[in-house]
């Protein structure tokens, strides 16, 4: 990523432009955009500490309602349990997608077989088939399998990924060819080759895919709304429903607190895997 070598890559060259040679306008512009972009979060953080009366007074200092809101959200509404459900779902889907995509990439690059390009386009075309346009029929199929209100219904339909298969296919195709020759001479099976050679060379791509998939699953909303009706099985994004009307009338604080709590896990994953994520993308963008 440009993090370290950004200076050498700056696009401002030639005659002194608006930003050339003067650093402070850049800083001002960046700080301005950060203020705008981070404002909704900061405002939500402020409101999450305030009681309704303090919100309506338009108070700009932290209020006195944080403890009560946390109790309402965490204990009464069982947000922790819902977050655990979301975490299990995200963990399982991310893991399954990574493994299945690795296997598919291995088959696409290190085997030649009849009908390969047909299979390839069979997978490619699914990129044009968003789940949402067929969600009613999918709902029926999954319900007929008896997977309503179950983790299987949340995970299995999303366990394969065309995007992942292509990402690994492209990555493997750009690795040196003699790797597979050498390991065949050593008598390694394809799976040994995958685990001993390919995976250690693919951590950046795996990390990038993991961040994308984890965030995608954690933020999933429409499918859990349809397939899960039992509150204990529900995922956390859907669990945010109804928080605006905890007491009689609107309650802002608990909703804002819950919205912020829900956003912490994907942020942690994003920051923890930031390095492979960024370099995984720089890699794919270079090609």
């Amino acid at each position: 990523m440009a993090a370290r070598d950004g200076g050498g890559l700056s696009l401002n060259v030639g005659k002194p432009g608006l930003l050339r040679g003067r650093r402070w306008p850049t800083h001002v512009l960046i700080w301005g955009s950060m203020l705008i972009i981070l404002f909704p979060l900061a405002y939500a953080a402020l409101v999450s500490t305030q009681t309704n009366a303090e919100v309506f007074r338009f108070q700009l200092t932290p209020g006195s309602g944080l403890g009560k809101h946390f109790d309402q959200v965490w204990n009464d509404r069982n947000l922790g349990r819902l977050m655990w459900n979301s975490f299990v779902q995200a963990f399982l889907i991310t893991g399954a997608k990574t493994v299945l995509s690795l296997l598919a990439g291995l088959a696409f690059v290190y085997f030649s077989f009849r009908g390969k390009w047909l299979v390839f386009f069979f997978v490619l075309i699914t990129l044009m088939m968003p789940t949402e346009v067929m969600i009613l029929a999918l709902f029926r199929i999954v319900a007929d399998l008896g997977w309503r209100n179950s983790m299987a219904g949340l995970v299995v339909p999303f366990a394969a990924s065309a995007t992942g298969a292509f990402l690994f296919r492209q990555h493997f195709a750009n690795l040196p060819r003699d790797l597979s020759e050498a390991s065949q001479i050593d008598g390694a099976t394809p799976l040994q080759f995958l685990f001993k050679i390919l995976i250690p060379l693919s951590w950046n791509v795996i990390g990038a895919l993991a961040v994308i998939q984890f965030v995608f699953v954690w933020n999933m909303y429409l499918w859990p709304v349809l397939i899960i009706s039992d509150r204990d099985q529900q995922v956390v994004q859907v669990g945010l429903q109804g928080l605006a009307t905890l007491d009689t009338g609107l309650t802002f604080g608990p909703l804002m607190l819950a919205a912020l709590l829900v956003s912490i896990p994907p942020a942690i994953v994003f920051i923890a895997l930031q390095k492979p994520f960024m370099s995984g993308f720089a890699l794919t963008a270079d090609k």
Partner: protein
Amino acid sequence: MLVAASFLIAAAVGVLSFGHSTKREVASGVVLGALGAATILAALGFCPFVSDAESTEGVLGVALAATFAWMFGAGTKAVFSQKAADLGSGDIRTGAFKLGWWWPWLLLSPTLVILVFFLYLPAYRTFTLSTKLTRLGTPRVGERCLSNFSELLVTNPAVVIMLPLTAVAFIWGVGMWHRRSEPGSWGHNLTRTIRPFGILIFLYSLYFIFENENGGYRLIYLNTVVISSSIVIVSMVAGLALAYLTFQNVRGITVYRTLLIWPYAISPPVAGILFFMMFNATGGIFAALANDFGFDFPNYATNSTLARLTIILASVWKLLGYNLLFFLAGLQTVPRDQIEAAALDGANAIQRFRSIVMPALGPIAFFLLITNLTFSFFDVYGTIDFLTKGAPAGATSVAIYELIRVGVDNGDLGRGAAQSVVLFLAVIGLTAWQFKQSEGRISYGSA
């Protein structure tokens, strides 16, 4: 009669879309067109052509057959033209494992099984479901044939077919005129000005084919076009501007970038909640500020313009980090030596941007266009559900929201599935249009 007519039309469309320079191409086109028509008509059970079907259904049936003939023809052509280039890079020439033939199939089988059962099967079932009258939770099924579709459209079948066709013919005509006229002539210049607006003319013509009376689909169409295109355009332009700004190396830039990118990890429902707070008419900060200055802040629960704007802003805010990330990655591929050479030759910043930066960003922009469109079509559901729930008076009910309202909340699976099919065709049409736009302008890697 109509069955024969629709197959003839389908065969002709198949040839047109596939190509007609050799006899073999014509034959393949005929077969593909007929195959496309057969697929969709089989999924519908050939119902538009039974004797007691209404004339509208017959016309719609022929139109659907032609559409699928075109999809099969053009799709296969695209596949063949990509085949050589694509497999060349991904295929291994040396070092392939020489084991049993079943090895690659074993490795691919989990992926293929899931794609077949949870993507291809539901796609097919969506079509069969769309001709039914069936309610959620009851086993009884009635046949509706294409009535679920004709309800969405105006009652005059001539308008439904001719209006979009006229728009397409006009766009083709303009393109033809442009290619045939002398560069520099007034006709050439005029057509060059009109051509980029072709998609707008087509979208505008579609506006009139949807039913307008008593809660018709026209409003949904308008909402979807306005909200989706605003989200995509604003978030991509803002993302590129922000990427330009943060591409420079100033102190602390890594931290800045991380902070600016990470709203990407926030969910559409949470984006809806945060903007619900800010724009709330009683407790929100904008209402409070407006009060201090002595005027009334409109309430998005009753003001449809503000409601749409709030949805757009919340979605743009959520998408911005994602676009920034990919544009930053894309800017690294801009050839710096060319920029310097152009600068030495006296090209200004705008010229450098148009001639060097834009072509280099092409593939990334194309990728982002598709992902942003998908987001603005579907993921916006969560934002809308927490912000406006389609209110006021349906002004923020986009296609996916209406689909769930009809199919799940009202339990009318057949009508919901018909709307799914419309949305499906829209997604395919948009993807095809984007590929056509990018043809020859963008060089792909092996992706």
